[in-house]
């Protein structure tokens, strides 16, 4: 810095305030201010280049401030590729103004003629003399009023613009130091979590804002970190000290909502959209369409359908708001900070000048996502609590609530006369608006009436010379919340134009590119088409070529469009042309986009690399939208809650991309943010036609749709699983959590829904008759206070503790989240529900008044102290084999547990099974006699192992199948595998166990750590068993391994996979669900992924079960691995998948990894 601080700036009057566009100060740094933001497209770099160029300053001395409402000019939302084309214009003039002022000052300083000084590298030069910019403003504050008539440089003289510049934000991003909105930390901030209504993603109708019946905050006030529950209309949120606490409270908060009304039938998308209220608006009525079409010798009528899409930001939206006593500060990732400020001012009834929006980069949004909504959430919560509040939406909230990229229907009629495109009508329905801020709707600040908008007309005028046209847009309100998404309505409109013209070309017997050129008048457009076809390797043809090699068909397609944005008739952004190649698998219907060539005319190119990156991004993103993406609905609402049911394009699916940028440095720069997306759908459809001869007119072009169109067998299977409209799923999702904070309960007992339930397949069969009633009931043993805990020796108690662990007692006698060992866990049998008993020494409700005699009788005979029979869900047939010493040690140990008063609920058994005397008869049949006697020929270790397995450990209770009377089967069937508790306990004895690969070493590893190499990992109920076995000495684990190995005599240590015949299912929605939700851990892409499954799915116990129940259980509930084991967690999917989706996924897994039952 030379001399005193000084600054020069360019401003514009905006009411009483000044909006500064550019400043340069004596630190040598230029700061540009732009009301648009960087959405991850690198616009910050391009704007910096413009400033550096006009100012003759090195690029690394330029900074940009983007979007902060108190610092940047209001230049409207960052949409429609306008930043470079429109909002950068005053910035360029401001830089030229400062340059001109500095040149004049420099000339004076250097005693040089003003016209002859040169400016470069931040200095004014004359002959050998130099004056730095800084030296020319020292000690001064120079303010220049923006003059948009200031001459700017001739592009011929550019040295910075037009050359590739590295992204200025990348170095900080690769080190993790770049602050995204998600990374902002504000002193004193607390955390909010919103509870959204069940009408996910809907924004019109009288129920909006009026569906919250009530909530019970008393139920959650005692939860850790609780600060507040805040309600305004249908806006509901909780605030807590930590984010995880806020989420837990939000999930636990009982909330009652009214059931929302149904959506129209979203499966019949085209009919539904056409039947909504709409106002037709003619955009082009050249000639007389009715007359023209009547003159045509070839006439075609076609309908094109575009699906609903997600913007799909990788980072769910996040914001922090500080109410700040009525002068709010909001840290935001908004696309439109100034528009957001107006919305928040409306929400809080404040003058918008009092709100300061500080804009940070967020994950790319490609249009309007929840970034603004979450600011409203945070501000409402901060207002209510007086603290700065951060709100991070969940993935499900972002998926469900973001304003969607709207579906669109295009009805087309047109024809040829004498081989020329003579008449064309297009009716386009686009149910979308600008997505009013959600907080405004939920609080009732804005009324929820349907709000039509006018954005369906983008690129609605075909580029061709057609004598008779009738181009009509039907302005209409959204059906579900929708707002602009990359390419807006221009992409679907172009899908129609460019598919239809392709079809007409073949009808005319002409090459599609030649046919287009014959109907183009604008030479610049013709040049782009011609150059792109030539450079892109276009192969002229007059009919689909249907090139086949083996099962693959190959084709090439062309399409182009000029993206027109802004209010009709709009402004042209860059024009793009696609030449693309596809390979179609004629057996599965899969379409692989193998190569895309994009020619693009964007006038002056600011940053060639930046433009190419935008082209690549548009191609990859839109290819996914065309080939894969499609939002599904149920009767009420949007259903996709994660990438599981809304898969994105993956790396192996992306095409090779080539680009050609037309050189036009003399023309104004045009926006490039969206143009290359626009021709995508038509180009791909046209390529598929070349390959197969079929026309795809409804996106996405999934394998199911391709198979149906191609008539490939298997196509008859409905694709309704994760595709549009999965039947009745909302009932599943609402039923589980009718009063819950999130509609996340699935059909089963998902995680977080409270008590675990066990489904014991113990069949108390019909052979028991009423005659059994005559059997005697056992005598009651009078209550006798148990000996005081202190009376037992430490040695005895240590022994008892081991027996307790080996018997896994705590697991069945503890309710999740309840007091340890106090019982109450429901055990479901086909004949009713039994609750496990309280085994703490509480005198009234537990074992405190049980003598050892009573305890031992219960353990060995299944008779309770009062003489009633216990149900055989309690494995006393195994415990009968325990030694007297162990029995007493266990009794002693139980008397030292923390006493808990908790009544055991009575069993809820169906007649006649509620008559416990029946059990006595059962006992007479199946109860063995007394403790196990050692087998003399076997080693002590083997005998010890046998004792642990057969008696204390009662392994057979789960691993042995049961007969019709619910008794464990012996002989060869013993330990041969059985379904249990909704899971599957596989064979641990016999040839099945041996051929699977069990041997002594693996048994030992498994029982000690929960994991036996890649053979098996303990999950579900077994994980708790192994966790409890940690109490047992190594010698006992080894003994169990020795014994079990002896039951699997052929255990040669082979690790043959259990897989019998596996099959590759035809790709469909369930296949995509598996690939996007399951494969990451079950088919990991990197070898040593620390969160992947330990065992291949083909060896999973659930897959080896004879039915799908265990698979469904694990998919629903996931796995929460005991912390003491080496096993891993798996997330449960009950909250987001419907019962039908889980069924289909289980069936898919069995088909793909399936094995015969073992």
């Amino acid at each position, binding site marked *: 810095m030379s001399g005193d601080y000084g600054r020069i700036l360019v401003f514009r009057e905006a009411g009483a305030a000044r909006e500064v566009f550019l400043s340069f100060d004596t630190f040598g740094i230029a700061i540009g201010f732009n009301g648009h933001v960087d959405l*991850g497209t*690198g616009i910050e770099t391009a704007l910096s280049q413009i400033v550096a160029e006009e100012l003759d300053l090195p690029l690394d001395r330029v900074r940009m401030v983007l979007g902060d409402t108190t610092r940047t000019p209001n230049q409207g939302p960052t949409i429609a590729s306008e930043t470079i084309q429109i909002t950068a214009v005053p910035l360029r003039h401001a830089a030229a103004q400062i340059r001109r002022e500095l040149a004049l000052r420099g000339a004076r300083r250097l005693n040089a003629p003003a016209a002859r000084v040169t400016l470069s590298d931040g200095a004014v030069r004359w002959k050998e003399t130099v004056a730095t910019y800084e030296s020319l403003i020292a000690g001064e504050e120079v303010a220049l009023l923006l003059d948009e008539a200031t001459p700017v440089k001739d592009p011929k003289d550019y040295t910075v613009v037009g050359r590739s510049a*590295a*992204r200025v934000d*990348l170095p900080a*991003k*690769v*080190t*993790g130091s770049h*602050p*995204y909105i*998600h990374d902002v*930390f504000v002193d004193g901030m607390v955390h909010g979590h919103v509870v959204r209504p069940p009408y996910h993603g809907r924004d019109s109708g009288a129920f909006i804002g009026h569906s919250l019946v009530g909530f019970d905050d008393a139920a959650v006030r005692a939860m850790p970190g609780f600060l507040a529950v805040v309600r305004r209309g249908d806006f509901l949120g909780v605030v807590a000290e930590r984010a*995880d606490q806020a989420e837990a409270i939000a999930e636990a908060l009982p909330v009652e909502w009214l059931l929302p009304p149904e959506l129209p039938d979203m499966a019949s998308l085209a009919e539904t959209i056409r039947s909504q209220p709409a106002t037709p608006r003619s955009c082009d009525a050249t000639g007389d369409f009715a007359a023209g079409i009547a003159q045509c010798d070839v006439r075609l009528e076609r309908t094109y359908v575009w699906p609903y899409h997600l913007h799909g*930001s*990788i*980072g769910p939206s996040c914001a922090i708001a500080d109410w700040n006593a009525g002068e709010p500060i909001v840290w935001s990732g908004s696309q439109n900070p100034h528009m957001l400020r107006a919305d928040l001012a409306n929400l809080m009834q404040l003058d918008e000048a009092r709100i300061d929006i500080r804009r940070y*980069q*967020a*994950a*790319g949004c*490609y249009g309007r996502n929840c970034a603004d909504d979450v600011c409203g959430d945070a501000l409402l919560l901060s207002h209510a609590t007086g603290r700065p509040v951060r709100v*991070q939406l*969940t*993935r499900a909230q972002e998926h469900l609530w973001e304003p969607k990229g709207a579906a669109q229907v295009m009805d087309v009629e047109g024809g040829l006369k004498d081989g020329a495109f003579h008449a064309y009508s297009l009716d386009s329905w686009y149910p979308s608006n600008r997505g009013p801020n959600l907080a405004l709707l939920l609080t009732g600040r804005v009324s929820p009436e349907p709000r039509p908008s006018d954005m369906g007309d983008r690129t609605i005028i075909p580029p061709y010379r057609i004598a008779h046209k009738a181009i009509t847009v039907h302005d209409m309100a959204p059906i579900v919340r929708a707002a602009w998404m990359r390419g807006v309505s221009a992409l679907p409109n172009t899908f129609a134009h460019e598919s239809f013209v392709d079809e007409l070309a073949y009808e005319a017997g002409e090459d599609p590119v030649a046919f287009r050129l014959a109907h183009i008048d604008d030479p610049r457009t013709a040049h782009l088409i011609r150059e792109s076809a030539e450079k892109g390797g276009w192969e002229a043809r007059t009919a689909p070529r249907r090139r086949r*090699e*083996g*099962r*693959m068909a190959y084709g090439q397609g062309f399409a182009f469009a000029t993206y027109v944005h802004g209010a009709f008739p709009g402004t042209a952004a860059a024009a793009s042309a696609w030449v693309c190649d596809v390979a179609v698998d004629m057996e599965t219907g899969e379409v*692989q986009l*193998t*190569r895309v060539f994009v020619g693009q005319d964007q006038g002056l190119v600011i940053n060639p690399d930046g433009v190419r*990156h935008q082209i*690549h*991004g*548009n191609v*990859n*993103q*839109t290819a996914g939208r065309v080939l894969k993406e499609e939002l599904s609905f149920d009767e009420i609402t949007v259903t996709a809650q*994660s*990438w*599981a049911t809304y898969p994105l*394009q*993956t*790396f*192996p699916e*992306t095409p*090779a991309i080539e680009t050609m940028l037309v050189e036009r440095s003399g023309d104004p720069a045009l926006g490039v943010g969206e143009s290359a997306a626009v021709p995508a759908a038509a180009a791909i459809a046209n390529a598929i036609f070349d390959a197969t001869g079929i026309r795809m007119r409804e996106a996405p072009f999934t394998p199911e749709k391709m198979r149906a169109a191609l008539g490939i067998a298997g196509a008859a299977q409905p694709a309704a699983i994760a595709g549009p409209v999965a039947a009745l799923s909302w009932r599943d999702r609402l039923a589980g959590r009718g009063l819950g904070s999130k509609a996340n309960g699935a059909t089963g007992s998902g995680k977080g829904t409270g008590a675990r339930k066990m489904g014991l397949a113990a069949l108390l069969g019909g052979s028991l008759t009423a005659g059994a009633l005559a059997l005697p009931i056992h005598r009651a043993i009078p209550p006798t206070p148990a000996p005081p805990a202190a009376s037992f020796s430490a040695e005895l108690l240590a022994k008892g503790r081991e027996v307790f662990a080996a018997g896994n007692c705590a697991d069945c006698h503890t309710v999740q989240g309840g007091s340890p060992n106090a019982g109450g866990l429901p055990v479901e049998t086909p004949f009713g529900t039994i609750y496990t008993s309280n085994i703490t020494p509480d005198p009234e409700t537990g074992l405190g008044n049980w003598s050892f005699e009573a305890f031992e009788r219960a353990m060995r005979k299944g008779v309770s102290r009062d003489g009633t029979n216990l149900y055989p869900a309690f494995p006393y047939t195994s415990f009968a084999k325990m030694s007297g010493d162990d029995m007493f040690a266990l009794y002693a140990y139980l008397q030292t547990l923390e006493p808990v008063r908790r009544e055991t609920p009575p069993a809820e058994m169906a007649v006649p099974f509620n008559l416990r005397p029946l059990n006595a008869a059962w006992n007479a049949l199946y109860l063995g006699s007394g403790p196990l006697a050692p087998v003399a020929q076997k080693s002590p270790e083997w005998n010890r192992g046998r004792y642990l397995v057969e008696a204390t450990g009662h392994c057979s209770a789960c691993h042995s199948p049961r007969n019709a009377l619910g008794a464990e089967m012996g002989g060869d069937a013993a330990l041969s595998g059985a379904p249990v508790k909704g899971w599957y306990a596989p064979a641990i004895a016999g040839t099945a166990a041996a051929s699977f690969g069990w041997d002594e070493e693996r048994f030992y590893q498994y029982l000690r750590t929960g994991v036996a190499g890649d053979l098996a990992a303990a999950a579900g109920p077994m994980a708790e068993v192994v966790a409890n076995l940690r109490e047992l000495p190594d010698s006992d684990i080894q003994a169990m391994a020795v014994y079990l190995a002896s039951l699997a005599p052929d255990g040669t240590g082979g690790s043959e996979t259990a897989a019998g015949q596996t099959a590759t299912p035809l790709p469909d929605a369930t296949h995509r669900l598996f690939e*996007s*939700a399951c494969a*990451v851990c079950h088919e990991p*892409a*990197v070898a*040593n*992924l*620390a*969160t992947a499954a330990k065992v291949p799915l083909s060896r999973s116990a659930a897959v080896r079960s004879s039915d799908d129940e265990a698979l469904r259980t694990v998919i629903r509930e996931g796995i929460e691995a005991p*912390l003491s084991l080496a096993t*891993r*967690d798996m997330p449960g999917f009950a909250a987001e998948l419907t019962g039908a989706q889980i069924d289909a996924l289980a069936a898919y897994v069995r088909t793909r990894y399936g094995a015969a039952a073992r």
Partner: protein
Amino acid sequence: MDRSIEIAVNGTRHAFAVDDRRSLLDVLRSDLGITSPKYGCGLAQCGACTVLVDGAPARSCVLRAAKADGAAVTTLEGLADAATGALHPVQQGFVEAAGAQCGYCLNGMIMSALALLSANPDPREDDVRSALRHNLCRCGTHAEIVASVMRAAELMREAAGNPARDDAAPAERAAVVSKAREGAPA
């Protein structure tokens, strides 16, 4: 339930009590101020949260912090040379080949690339695409990301004094089609 754990993050040991249901991602970001791993889905589907746990890549959104007790965790913040600030070759590769647009997924891309290159220092482009097949990028930066990883591999081999590649295959891009099973052209 709170549980005492000890984790070393980028060489710094942290001992603290943590609710045993909390994810490592949450604890890193909220408690330790390590913000390079990003929350994207919470279900291991997108990869934005990837960190290394004892050298192995992990999706920290589905790994409970208590499960990482005793582990050494490496994040993006820990890759550059602590003394000189010099970028790790993988980071350098991503800068040189501009492997990001919005960059929200970038952490996962770099950490996954690191895992790939540790196992396979000389990958082909298809190996890179395959290794990143469970990392989602919505900006469509796939081509630049693959180029970044290829460049990173080159830089790492150079750093290891072994710049030669056994088989540079410029035309391999066309072989994507060969994925399409038998009958595909060579």
